[in-house]
């Protein structure tokens, strides 16, 4: 659906050149929810803006359904942008228009008759659960509601791709979850390919199928979320994924393992069951787990006892319960 080939973007500032994106090649397929994760300043926003040519890459090629965006005329590019919608961290709604009129905007500029546009806008606002707020102005809506309006607006032109630049970064955890659920739903029911830019592993974990880890403008690692989540290879991916150790590992303690919950196992008191069944005490160094629809997501960093026997029992127990883990350094 979207192909990036050796995309680079260099900014010329008064003092120096900033290489915001360097040689990025990615292939995003139809139906993917593709995460692009990286620390602040890694070049995520720049990269995503290259995808709809809001930023023209310094070199490299961006292809949408096989056509290079650089080869399009100005008019064709504007039309293509209607197929690649975008939502933002700061929502970017028109403050002087009601929710309904905001959703009408993209239809208006595409020349859709007013009546038809309003009908579609109403439908979309009810898809995002705001049918009772059509006449509210953005200032009268909460952050989550504003993002819903923005999503409805982004969907108005029946896009094939939806770019989300830190779309949930300004929202609280519950609202974040509901917005992510909405995006997932849109992906499943409308078949919209979604590209999610974020600095939070939680977001990737919750909805993405594939992920690319961006480090100072380059792709450090890319692949299916489960693989990278289970065994991150690059330094930056480990930093983003591994929970920060809450306690210092005991000097005389045993090896440290990382348990990964990717929704395959049900939510249960794993650690206490493990302790009881294996007759071993473990030390939790860090944990970040949550229960989504009865399934466990997240990870726990465990320090095992020093004796070999307990370690073997624990590893067998985990394998038996189908809980994924990897060796980690403390």
């Amino acid at each position: 659906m979207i192909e990036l080939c050796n995309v680079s973007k260099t900014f010329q500032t008064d003092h120096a050149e900033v290489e915001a994106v360097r040689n990025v090649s990615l292939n995003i397929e139809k139906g993917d929810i593709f995460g692009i994760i990286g620390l602040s300043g890694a070049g995520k926003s720049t990269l995503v803006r290259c995808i709809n040519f809001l930023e023209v890459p310094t070199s490299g090629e961006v292809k949408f359904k096989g056509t290079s965006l650089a080869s399009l005329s100005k008019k064709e590019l504007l039309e293509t942008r209607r197929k690649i919608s975008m939502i933002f961290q700061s929502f970017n709604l028109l403050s002087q228009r009601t929710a309904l009129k905001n959703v009408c905007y993209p239809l208006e500029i595409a020349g859709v008759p007013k009546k038809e546009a309003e009908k579609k806008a109403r439908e979309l606002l009810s898809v995002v659960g705001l049918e009772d707020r059509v006449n509210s102005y953005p200032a009268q809506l909460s952050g989550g509601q504003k993002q819903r309006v923005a999503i409805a607006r982004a969907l108005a032109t029946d896009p094939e791709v939806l770019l989300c630049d830190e779309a949930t970064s300004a929202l609280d955890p519950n609202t974040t979850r509901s917005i992510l659920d909405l995006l997932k739903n849109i992906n499943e029911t409308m078949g919209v390919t979604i590209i999610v830019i974020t600095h939070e592993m939680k977001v990737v974990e919750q909805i993405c199928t594939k992920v690319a880890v961006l480090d100072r403008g380059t792709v450090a690692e890319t692949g299916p979320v489960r693989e990278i989540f289970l065994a991150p290879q690059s330094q930056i991916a480990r930093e983003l994924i591994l929970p920060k150790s809450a306690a210092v590992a005991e000097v005389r303690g045993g090896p440290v393992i990382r348990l990964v919950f990717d929704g395959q196992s049900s939510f249960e008191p794993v650690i206490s069951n493990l302790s009881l069944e294996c007759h071993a005490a473990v030390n939790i160094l860090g944990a970040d787990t949550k229960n989504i629809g009865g399934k466990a997501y997240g990870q726990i960093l465990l320090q095992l006892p020093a004796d070999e026997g307990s370690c073997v029992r624990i590893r067998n127990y985990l394998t038996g319960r189908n809980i994924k883990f990897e060796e980690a350094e403390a």
Partner: protein
Amino acid sequence: MEVLNNLFGDGMLAMYGEAILVTVKITLLSTLLSYILGIPLGVLLYGTSKDGIFPSAPVNGIVGTVVNIIRSIPFIILLVMTQPVAKLITGSKIGDDAFIVYLVIAAAPFVARMIESSFREVDRGVIEAAQSMGSNNFQIITKVLLPEAKPSLIVGSAIAITTILGYTPMTYLIAGGGLGQMAIQYGLYRFESDIMYISSILLIILVQIMQETLNYIAKKSDKRIRGK
């Protein structure tokens, strides 16, 4: 009684009325024409700026310099310098109509800068969102910049209109009319300070009415305030 008769009798009321009409006409027409010239200039200044929607350093440099030069010329000097323009347009270098020409030449660059600064207040992210939806520049100007900047533009027009009103007494220099001219005429040359005070008070009332009305409209039209 005698005093009142002096001030309001014997066709004095008609004179005040006439003066008010002239002042209002000069002010409104000048403001309107200044905006007709100032809006495209403001759009050009904003659009061609470094982070505008159609950046162009040369165009921005040229338009910006011309605007700044005109703005820095004192009004009286500008009036003298642009007499041929007034003659060309109205057929005369003096009178109310010629005065409108001078006022417009002086005010349009000022209006352009005000419009530019109103546009700058529009969130860059909103413009970017509009671009991401495939808007062309014309649509961004008419459907995003102007409506989003509307409250600020109306407040700006209140400033413009009162500033222009403040210049209207200068008509007395070129045989024009209006309240200001009347105040100068009676106060300065005929020592009838009562009439001078009355016409001045009328002028002040006029300023207040225009300013308050526009500020009210601006407030009323702004949807960024909660609870409306």
